[in-house]
């Protein structure tokens, strides 16, 4: 199974200004970009914000190739969304929507490219500590992020494998031959991951909810 396709840039060791920026500030920038994507109404502003975020990414030293790599994964979806929005609402609105999504992707990539995963998870645990009073387990929040980061490349790899298999059998134009195996593989992967996490005692639920008898 391949696992190279990844929506967000993976951590690149370095000592740039972005690497040294406190984690809370990076989280804040990502949250601000997410919020701004709902508030910005002018595509030129979206373009400017995109330029700033891309500039921050390059400032981190992660490189232009990685920037393109993280954008490449969403290109087909954004192309489809952009064309539909252009047809429905016109060019400026389509450009704004597409650029706002790209801003979010680049902002998240700046965070992941300049923060070691364990530091990121420690940050998630710190942020989610207030939810402990409601019975939430901060480590589970962190584990959710970890599993998400792991699952995206796996699913992308599964799609690449299935596409190659379909090509080998002359079925590359059959959407069912592409979608169904990826779906089944993903469900199987989710079950395996659940078993693996349980076996390692990670994200363990209360004893009462476990060990249900099978029949």
């Amino acid at each position: 199974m391949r696992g190279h396709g990844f929506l967000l840039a993976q951590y690149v060791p370095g000592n740039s200004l972005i690497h040294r920026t406190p984690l809370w500030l990076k989280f804040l920038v990502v949250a601000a970009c997410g919020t701004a994507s709902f508030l910005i109404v002018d595509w030129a502003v979206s373009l400017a914000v995109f330029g700033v975020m891309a500039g921050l990414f390059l400032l981190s030293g992660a490189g232009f190739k990685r920037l393109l790599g993280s954008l490449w994964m969403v290109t087909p979806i954004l192309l489809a969304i952009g064309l539909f929005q252009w047809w429905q609402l016109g060019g400026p609105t389509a450009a704004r929507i597409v650029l706002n999504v790209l801003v979010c992707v680049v902002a998240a990539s700046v965070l992941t490219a300049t923060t070691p995963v364990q530091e990121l998870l420690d940050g998630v645990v710190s942020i989610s500590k207030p939810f402990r009073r409601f019975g939430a387990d901060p480590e589970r929040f962190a584990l959710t992020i970890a599993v998400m980061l792991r699952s995206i490349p796996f699913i992308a790899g599964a799609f690449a494998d299935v596409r190659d298999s379909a090509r080998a059998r002359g079925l590359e134009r059959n959407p069912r031959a592409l979608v169904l195996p990826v779906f089944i593989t993903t469900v199987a992967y989710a079950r395996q991951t659940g078993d693996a996490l349980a076996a390692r005692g990670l994200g363990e639920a209360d004893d009462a909810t476990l060990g249900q008898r099978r029949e």
Partner: protein
Amino acid sequence: MNSISFNGVSVRVAVDTGDAPKTLLHRFSLELTERRIGVIGANGSGKSTFLRLFNGLVAPTEGTVVVHGRSTDSDVRRVRANVGFVFTDPLSQLVMPTGREDVELSLRRSVRNPKERTARAEAVLDRFGLLRVADQSIYELSGGERQLLALAAVLAVNPGVLVLDEPSTLLDLRNRELLRRTISGLDQQVIMSTHDLDLVLDMDRVLVVEDGRMVFDGGAAEAVAHYRALCAGAASELPLERWSR
């Protein structure tokens, strides 16, 4: 109390067709005290179901499983903390993008200090000769390195029991030998299912599983002979004449 006991255990699962439940493991009782225990049997015989009983990944339909004094039914969390489980395919087990991060993930609950956690992870990786590939993507590692990494991630929390479900299936001869030497050097009580009969010969006690039943329980050499006889008998019933042309 380094004993694992199965008392009147059976495992049945419901089937979609509405027929009677399918029996994956017929009722059996066992007391396991040996340090190295092998499990052999054909594909689909019930080996994996049996192994999953050790840490509560599968719960018995009837009977009880007690691992080192703790029941997998009422104390599953503590059982899992004490029973490490290694799957056939390490990629289904490794959660993080790199080896270092995956071992650190194992240590998150037991070692809160990030620096201490990193140091402990490095020590574990070094013990398995994986420190040089600690920051490589798990997809860039060889099959043997991945399996060793899965083993390292499980052993990082120092469980008392190690369960391995066909760990050598995806490995070449060299990596199988590496795995064999690594396992033989472990302090843990090891329970391992495998199709590698050479690996089984290292075991103190071997169980043979056939159609959900424990059909043999004894020394390694006798168990292998029994299993070979079973396979030879089953093979002779196959309609091979169809392929003889």
